[in-house]
C-alpha cells in the first residue's frame, strides 16, 4: 500500500473516537418488484433518500466487498411506515434490513464537466470515462419558476428543419410536443434539432440534454455515436434510463435531466432538453404507483399522472433578466398507438405544452420525411420568436400546403381540373418536395430562408417534381460555396433586405443558367 495512505490510516486510528451520532432508522418489512415497505422512519419526508444498511451482521472483510451503497427513494408516507423504491439492485435488499434516513432530497450532479457525457438517472457516469471531479448538486424535485421570474418567448430556437422553422417555429423557453406513432421519425426530429445547434455561435448555443427513457440500449448507443460523429456531443448531456432499468429510474430520468438543465439555466445559459419519451415514463410511473398500491384511475394510471407531466414541463421557462435570462426549451416526445391522439397521456401532454408537431404514418410511408402534418401541427408562442427573414418567406406556406392537401384528396375523384387548380396542385407538390429533408442534415436558418425564397418565387416550377430534392441540394451547395456573403447578411440581420433579395434573385438566375438540364418541366 502507498506510504501516504498508510500514514493517513495510522493518523485516523490514533484519533479514533467512536461516533455517538444518532441516526433515524426503520426496518424493511417486505420487498418485491423494486418496492419496499418499511416500518418506522416516521420522520421521513417525500422524495427523501434512504440508505439500506447491508453490512449488518457481516464480517468486516465481507462488508468491504460490497458494491457501493444502496439507496432508496421515499414515495409513500403511510400510517405505520413508508413505502420506497429501490434505486439499484433489488436483490440486495432483504426483509428485516435496517434502513437509515439521510435527510437528503434526491439530487443529481450538474456542471460543465457533464458536457459530452452519458449519465444514468441518478447522474452517475455510465460511459466508462471516470467519475466527475467538480459538480454542483441540483435537487431533482424543484418548484418551477413563478410568473414574476419569467418573461415571454422571443428568441428563436432553430431546429434546422425547414417544415418546423418555417411553419411551426419554436422559441427558447417553449415546450413543443413531438407526437406520432412508433418509428416515424420523432427521435430524428429531436436529434436533428440538437445537431443543428452547432450552427449557432458558441456564446448563444444552447446546452442540449437528451433524456432516453425506456429506450433500447442499442438505440441510445447509436444516438450517442451520431452526436459524436456530428460534433454535437461536446455540448450535449445524455441521461439514460434504458428499458432494462427499474421503473423508478425510468420515472426519475426526466426530472434528473431537467435538474441538470436548471444548473445551466440558473447560470444564464440556454438549454434544450428532449424527453424521449414521456409515454414510457408514464408507463413506468403507472407500474410504480400500482406497486405502491395507489388507487388506479383511467387506463390504470394514478390520479396524479397529469401533475407528473405538468410539474416536469412547467420547469421549462425563459427567465427574466433579473434571474439571469437563461432558458430551458423542452421537446417532449409522446408515442401514439395507431395515430390515436385522443388517448389519456397524449391529450394530457398536448394540453400542457405550447404546441405540437404531429408526425403521421401516412406521410412517412409516402416518403415525405420528416412526416410532419403541418395542418394539425401548431406552435402557440413560437411565431413571436421567428426572425423577420423567415416570416417574410414562410408567410403563406401553411395555407398553401393545407389547400394542396385538400385538392390532392379531391383530385382522386376529379379527372378534369381547371388550370388554376392544376397549377396549385403542381406548386404544392413541389413545395412538399422542397420541405423534404434527409435524416441528420439540418439546414442553417439563412439557408432555409434562401431555399424557401426560391420556392416561393416559382424557382422550382420548371423542375420535374421528382428532381426537386436533388436540385435543391445543388442549390444549397451553390449558395454555400460561392454566395456565402448573402447568407451571412441574412443571418446577421435576421431580415431579408431588398439588397439580399436582389442578390438572391441574381444567384438563382445564375444557377438556372448554369444548370439548364434541371429545368425541363413545362406545366
Amino acid at each position: 500500500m502507498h506510504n501516504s495512505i498508510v500514514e493517513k490510516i495510522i493518523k485516523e486510528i490514533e484519533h479514533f473516537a467512536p461516533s455517538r451520532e444518532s441516526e433515524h432508522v426503520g426496518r424493511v418489512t417486505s420487498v418485491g418488484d423494486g418496492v419496499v415497505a418499511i416500518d418506522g422512519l416516521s420522520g421521513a419526508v417525500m422524495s427523501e433518500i434512504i440508505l439500506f444498511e447491508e453490512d449488518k451482521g457481516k464480517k468486516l472483510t465481507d462488508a468491504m466487498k460490497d458494491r457501493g451503497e444502496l439507496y432508496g427513494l421515499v414515495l409513500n408516507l403511510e400510517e405505520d411506515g413508508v413505502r420506497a423504491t429501490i434505486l439499484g439492485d433489488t436483490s440486495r435488499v432483504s426483509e428485516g434490513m435496517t434502513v437509515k434516513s439521510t435527510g437528503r432530497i434526491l439530487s443529481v450532479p450538474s456542471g460543465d464537466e457533464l458536457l459530452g457525457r452519458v449519465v444514468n438517472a441518478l447522474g452517475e457516469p455510465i460511459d466508462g470515462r471516470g467519475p466527475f471531479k467538480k459538480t454542483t448538486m441540483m435537487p431533482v424535485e424543484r418548484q418551477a419558476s413563478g410568473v414574476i421570474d419569467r418573461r415571454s418567448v422571443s428568441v428563436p430556437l432553430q431546429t434546422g428543419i425547414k417544415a418546423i422553422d418555417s411553419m411551426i417555429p419554436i422559441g427558447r423557453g417553449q415546450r413543443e410536443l413531438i407526437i406520432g406513432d412508433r418509428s416515424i421519425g420523432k427521435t430524428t426530429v429531436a436529434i436533428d434539432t440538437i445537431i443543428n445547434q452547432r450552427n449557432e455561435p458558441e456564446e448563444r448555443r444552447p446546452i442540449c440534454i437528451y433524456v432516453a427513457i425506456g429506450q433500447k440500449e442499442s438505440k441510445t448507443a447509436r444516438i450517442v455515436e451520431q452526436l459524436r460523429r456530428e460534433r454535437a456531443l461536446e455540448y450535449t448531456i445524455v441521461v439514460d434510463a434504458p428499458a432494462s432499468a427499474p421503473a423508478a429510474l425510468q420515472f426519475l430520468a426526466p426530472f434528473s435531466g431537467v435538474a441538470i438543465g436548471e444548473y445551466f439555466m440558473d447560470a444564464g445559459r440556454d438549454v434544450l432538453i428532449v424527453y424521449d419519451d414521456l409515454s414510457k415514463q408514464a408507463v413506468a410511473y403507472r407500474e410504480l404507483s400500482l406497486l405502491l398500491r395507489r388507487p388506479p384511475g383511467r387506463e390504470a394510471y394514478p390520479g396524479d399522472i397529469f401533475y407528473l407531466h405538468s410539474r416536469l414541463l412547467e420547469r421549462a421557462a425563459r427567465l427574466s433578466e433579473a434571474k439571469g435570462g437563461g432558458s430551458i426549451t423542452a421537446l417532449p416526445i409522446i408515442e401514439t398507438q395507431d395515430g390515436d391522439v385522443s388517448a389519456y397521456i397524449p391529450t394530457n401532454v398536448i394540453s400542457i405544452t405550447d404546441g405540437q408537431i404531429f408526425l403521421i404514418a401516412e406521410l412517412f410511408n409516402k416518403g415525405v420525411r420528416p412526416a410532419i402534418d403541418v395542418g394539425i401541427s401548431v406552435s402557440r408562442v413560437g411565431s413571436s420568436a421567428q426572425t423577420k427573414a423567415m416570416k417574410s418567406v414562410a408567410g403563406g406556406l401553411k395555407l398553401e400546403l393545407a389547400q394542396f392537401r385538400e385538392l390532392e384528396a379531391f383530385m382522386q375523384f376529379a379527372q378534369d381540373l381547371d388550370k388554376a387548380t392544376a397549377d396549385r396542385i403542381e406548386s404544392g407538390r413541389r413545395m412538399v418536395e422542397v420541405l423534404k429533408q434527409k435524416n441528420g442534415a439540418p439546414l442553417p436558418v439563412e439557408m432555409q430562408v434562401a431555399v424557401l425564397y426560391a420556392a416561393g418565387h416559382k424557382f422550382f416550377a420548371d423542375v420535374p417534381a421528382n428532381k426537386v430534392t436533388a436540385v435543391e441540394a445543388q442549390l444549397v451547395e451553390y449558395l454555400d460555396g460561392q454566395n456565402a456573403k448573402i447568407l451571412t447578411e441574412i443571418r446577421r440581420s435576421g431580415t431579408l433586405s431588398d439588397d439580399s433579395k436582389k442578390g438572391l434573385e441574381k444567384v438563382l438566375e445564375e444557377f438556372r443558367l448554369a444548370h439548364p438540364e434541371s429545368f425541363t418541366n413545362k406545366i
Partner: protein
Amino acid sequence: MENAYAQALMRMMSRGMNPKDAVAALHTLLVRLGRESLLPKIGRAFGRLAEREGGRTGITLTVARHKDTHAAQHAIKDILSKMKTDTDEVVVRTDDSLIGGWRLEGRERLIDASFKKYLLSLYNRATQS
C-alpha cells in the same frame, strides 16, 4: 381483512381497554357478521403486529463480546436517560462482527459506535479519495 381487525384490536387495547373485553367484543361482532372463521387469522395478524410494535418500542444493545456488556451499558447510560428508559429494559445481544464497541438500536433510532463501522468508513474514505 384480518390485518384491519388486528389493528382495530391493537388500537382498542392501546386506548386502555382490557384485552379480555376487547377480544370478547371482537368475537361478538364476528359472530354477528358470520365471520367467526376469521378469528385464527386475526390472532396471527395480531401476533405479527405485536412483534412489530415490540421491535418499534424495544431497545437492543449489541456488543462484540459478552465481556464488553458492562462497559457498553455504562457508555449508553446518558443516552438511555434521554430516552427515558432503564438499563434493565434493554435487550443485550452479541455480534462478533462488530469487532469492538457497541451498537444501540430501537425506537427508530440507531447509534453505531462499533469498531466495524469506524473501520469501514475509514476504508471507504481511503479508497475513494
